[in-house]
């Protein structure tokens, strides 16, 4: 059966320590891989300023997962349930990617274009980003 591409964005509370953040992220990763999903890409934006306060917090840790799974694996249901049960999650968004989105994400990952945009995101939280990026880039490889 054809695999479906999904993308998931989670906003975690800014009060977490670095270790708690890593734990939370790895637990979601584990959930994806254990339910027959295949993690393609993950991205950490670090501490980013939000456009409006959520639960009286003005910043959040943004984490993005991109993964493939069988369409009938109910992986998204399980992931969303885990997000809802987790009190550290401020917001989440799971979407199915169409063919244009998959192509776009591939190009974005390769840094083929929109280089300036990624730099913009890092500028939003230079201190947190500097701490977090080396860790994630090592894990990606």
């Amino acid at each position, binding site marked *: 059966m054809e695999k479906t591409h999904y993308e998931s*964005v989670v906003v975690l509370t800014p009060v977490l320590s670095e270790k708690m953040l890593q734990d939370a992220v790895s637990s979601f990763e584990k959930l994806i891989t254990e339910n027959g999903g295949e993690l393609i890409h993950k991205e950490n934006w670090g501490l980013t300023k*939000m456009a*409006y306060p959520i639960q009286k917090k003005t910043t*959040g840790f943004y984490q993005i997962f991109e993964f493939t799974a069988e369409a009938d694996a109910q992986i998204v249901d399980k992931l969303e349930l885990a997000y809802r049960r987790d009190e550290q999650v401020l917001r989440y968004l799971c*979407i199915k990617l*169409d063919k244009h989105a998959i192509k776009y994400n591939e190009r974005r990952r390769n840094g083929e274009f929109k280089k300036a*945009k990624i730099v913009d995101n890092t500028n939003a939280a230079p201190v947190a980003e500097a701490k977090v990026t080396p860790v994630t880039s090592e894990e990606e490889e």
Partner: protein
Amino acid sequence: MAKRQKYTRVPVIRPKKYCRFKKSGIKYIDYKNPDFLMAFINEQGKLLPRRITGTSLKYQRKVAVAVKRCRHIALLPYVADQMK
């Protein structure tokens, strides 16, 4: 008797609007890029109509979805006073 002055309307020549997605071949609108989506909302954070941005209907729908997703993950505000 003085003759009434005839009113003639002077046509204003504006450059024709075009859909920027069709022109530059963009097929997917990223909801994680609020800086780009700023071009399609007004300073209160509301979506701009097609007649102002010139976007085609197909891509206006995609812009609307992208802006709504972007608002949900708190990268764009639902309401704002002055954002530009």
